């Protein structure tokens, strides 16, 4: 396994679009993350009006703001890059570096949200999934860090660590557990990814892809034999999916 992904060389317009996409994602998350921290700050202040208990949150907000300011200090260069104006090698490297460093700060703060009181997912996200699938859903949505969000369902993790099927059975009574990133809680566009994840649960329950590949009834076994696939591996989550 190679540690480094191979970066495909692209023409400048595609490169510019990629940059815009990454920049947009980063700015969106910074804004959402700041909102989460501000809400936590209000909550803590309301609970402890007599003292100043929000120092930790102030530090996180200040840390995020420092990164945001670094990006803003390079805003003239970012504008030039987006508008295809010529930049020197140093300026181009600096612009990309500024966005990269912003993302690092963003990920660090987002990870630390695991240590704070956890917010609940928006009920509207469940309504969206219900509307997509058109039936009663058996699922829960929990907020978590970016590393584990959207990558798996809880049952799959238990399966991988050899928890017996009988024990898992009782856990699945509550339905699938979908993990959403803290910063995506208020972003309806990000909820669409949950619909994708829930599609895996629907697929498993109805063996939809299996029926498409192998057919139904008696022809299923012969097709599987022909294809020499047997039990094809399940892929779950954004990272492993195509």
């Amino acid at each position, binding site marked *: *396994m190679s540690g480094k992904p191979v970066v495909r060389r692209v023409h400048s317009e595609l490169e510019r679009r990629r940059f815009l996409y990454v920049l947009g994602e980063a700015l969106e998350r910074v804004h959402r993350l700041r909102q989460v921290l501000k809400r936590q700050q209000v909550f803590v202040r309301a609970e402890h009006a007599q003292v100043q208990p929000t120092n930790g949150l102030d530090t996180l907000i200040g840390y995020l703001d420092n*990164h945001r300011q670094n990006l803003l200090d390079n805003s003239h260069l970012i504008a030039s890059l987006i508008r295809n104006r010529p930049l*020197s090698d140093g300026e181009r490297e600096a612009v990309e570096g500024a966005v*990269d*460093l912003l993302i*690092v700060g963003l990920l660090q703060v987002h990870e630390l949200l695991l240590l704070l009181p956890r917010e609940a997912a928006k009920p509207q996200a469940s309504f969206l999934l219900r509307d997509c699938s058109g039936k009663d859903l058996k699922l829960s949505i929990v907020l978590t860090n970016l590393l584990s969000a959207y990558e798996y369902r809880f049952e799959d993790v238990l399966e991988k660590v050899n928890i017996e099927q009988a024990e898992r059975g009782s856990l699945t009574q509550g339905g699938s557990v979908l993990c959403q990133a803290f910063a995506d809680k208020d972003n309806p566009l990000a909820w669409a990814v949950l619909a994708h994840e829930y599609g895996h649960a629907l697929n498993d329950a109805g063996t939809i892809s299996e029926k498409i590949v192998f057919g139904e009834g008696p022809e299923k076994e012969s097709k599987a034999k022909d294809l020499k696939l047997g039990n094809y591996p399940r892929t779950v989550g954004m990272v492993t999916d195509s």
Partner: protein
Amino acid sequence: MATATIPRNDLYLSVLAGRAVTALADLSGDPSAWSQRIESGLRDGIFCCQAVRARAGRNIGGSSSEGRSALNRSVGNTSDPDSVRTDVCTESERIERFLLQLASRKHRPEMPELVGAIKFLRKTSTDR
């Protein structure tokens, strides 16, 4: 979780590096430019280089070589971690000298030098 084990000072590396990168970006546009932002950014870059060396020093005693070897094998990394650390220390000293010269206005920077310094600051502060 990775963040939980990051020492508090290392967490601020990316802030320092960001300010230094901004200063170097200003100089990339105009090598003779000078402002409070450039000066303080270069100073932050110097602190950043020193912190990178301190971090590399801490990591020497932080984990067993056996454990590191197993980790490297698992990710297919064949480079010797000790030599990588030496490279980082040497490079950070070189970049720190360059930033010191710029901060004391004794040197007019060339583009390759600026690009090299930006790349170093970016790489060492975004190792994740």
